[in-house]
């Protein structure tokens, strides 16, 4: 398969189809790689989760036959990717995650090999030695006592080992490169992810401020799970499959709790943006209104952007706000923005 992929890329490169440069979104929930292939962009993705199952030859055979992805490490067998979530729900347990709150999990002992394998499976081998790859990183968290240096250095080192020239890009900034070309890359990019919400205010493609907060999708799942006595995995499954934030009546207990915590999260993020504006003391003189782009898996439920606008209207930012809209593909915009940066660097070579 690996060989086939390499051949496919080599033939593509000869035909002028696969272009140089890749963008990877390394998120708490998904890892996604974008690569230009002719007039299309190919997105390869993996869910960033795993679940331990009993290690027997029989289990492995069943998993192989059902095309369920697994990893064997020492004497342990782990189901990885989307199926890990299904297994966790089946056993009424939680999945394990290599990343927590946007960075390599300090408490998960299998974090590093697991995240390396998942990254390797989506990014593949470089088209040529030293190919530029931009990988997304979170902003410094405002509400947690950790920094992101270890996370960046480990990912950078690993991508180098694979033969790439790695460069990092802030997640919110990547959204701006992906979605705001028409506005000269000026606006606010918001990525509502699983472990973090990332925010970046950019002026003419240059980040003015960027930060993250560690309340995000996982926080909603945990709070709701505690409130209604469910597992976070089950709450997450409902949130991802059927939550409608525009619905006001006939909500189940879980949906009601989700709606409450979504409101809380949005308000929390907007208040933090307001604080960053006030910390900046002086604002750039932007004559036009600022567009806001909403993105990320936690922004996917129906009615999210409407809820965001409602709360923003009440709280107000200290700058004139223009359109508030969802990214064209909320799960792909970070990888796409990273690809824009990688392609720009590659074409300068």
């Amino acid at each position, binding site marked *: *398969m*690996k060989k086939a992929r390499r051949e496919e890329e080599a033939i593509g490169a000869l035909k002028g189809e696969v272009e140089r440069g890749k963008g990877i979104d390394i998120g708490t929930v998904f890892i996604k790689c974008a690569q*230009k*292939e002719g*007039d*299309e*962009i190919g*997105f*390869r*993705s*993996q869910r960033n989760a795993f679940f331990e199952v009993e290690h027997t030859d029989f289990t492995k055979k069943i*998993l*192989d036959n059902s*095309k369920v*992805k697994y*990893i*064997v490490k020492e004497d342990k067998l782990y189901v*990885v990717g989307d199926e890990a979530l299904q297994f966790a729900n089946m056993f009424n347990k939680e999945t394990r995650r290599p990343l927590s709150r946007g960075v390599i999990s300090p408490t998960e002992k299998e974090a*590093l*090999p697991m995240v*390396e*394998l998942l990254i*390797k*499976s*989506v990014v593949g081998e470089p088209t040529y030695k030293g190919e530029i790859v931009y990988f997304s990183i979170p902003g410094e968290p405002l509400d947690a006592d950790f920094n992101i240096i270890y996370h960046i*250095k*480990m990912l*950078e*080192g*690993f991508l*180098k*080992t*694979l033969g790439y020239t790695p460069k990092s890009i802030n997640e919110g900034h990547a959204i701006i*490169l*992906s979605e705001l*070309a028409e506005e*000269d*890359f000026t606006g606010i990019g918001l990525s509502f992810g699983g472990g973090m919400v990332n925010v970046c205010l950019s*002026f003419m*493609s*240059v*980040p*003015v*401020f*960027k930060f993250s907060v560690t309340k995000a999708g996982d926080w909603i799942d945990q709070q709701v799970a505690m409130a209604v006595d469910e597992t976070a995995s089950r709450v997450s499954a409902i949130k991802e499959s059927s939550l409608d934030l525009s619905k006001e009546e006939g909500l189940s207990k879980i949906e009601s709790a989700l709606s409450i915590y979504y409101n809380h999260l949005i308000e929390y993020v907007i208040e933090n943006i307001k604080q960053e504006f006030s*910390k*900046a*003391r*002086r604002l*750039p*003189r932007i004559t036009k209104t600022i567009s806001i782009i909403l993105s990320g898996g936690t922004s996917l439920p129906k009615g999210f952007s409407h809820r965001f606008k409602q709360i923003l209207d009440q709280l107000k930012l200290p700058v004139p706000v223009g359109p508030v809209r969802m990214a064209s*593909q909320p799960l*792909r915009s970070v990888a*796409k923005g990273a*690809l*824009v*940066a990688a*392609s*720009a660097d590659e*074409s300068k070579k």
Partner: protein
Amino acid sequence: MLSGTEADIINSVARSRMVTKDQIRRQVGFSLDYIGFLCRDLVRRGYLDFSNGHYFLAKKGIKTLLAEETPKVDRELLKEIAGEVAKEIGGELKKAVKGIKIPVKEIRKRKDLREKAGQEAVKIKTDFEFPVEDETLALESNINKIGTKLEKEKLNIDKSVELFKKFKQRGKG
């Protein structure tokens, strides 16, 4: 004509004579990237000069500062510096300081030292390259056999790439 933030930068450079991007950022606010972007643009337009990691006023910058072309130029700062000069050399000059626009070197040096002692944080300048082993080589997995989920989208990012390149080049001056 300078924008408000650009005038703030000119004031900040005037205040300290020679300053790093980081020192300007501390005084003006915003991210280092954004301040760098504006400074490079001011160098390109002839307001600032740049040497050995420090920005200082170029002819056009000094002219702007003296000619009062920019409403945002910090008159308060000029008054403050003038006030300090007055204190330094005694009460006699107190009445005449209103017109003084060029700060005295000694005052500035002392001000620089005060600022450095109080505000300068340690900046990590080295880029430590940490070799990370490929731990996946020791793992058994069927991921490559099954493959990853591939979705394709018809998208043209060429315009975005070109525009981003243009902005990056402009920023570099």
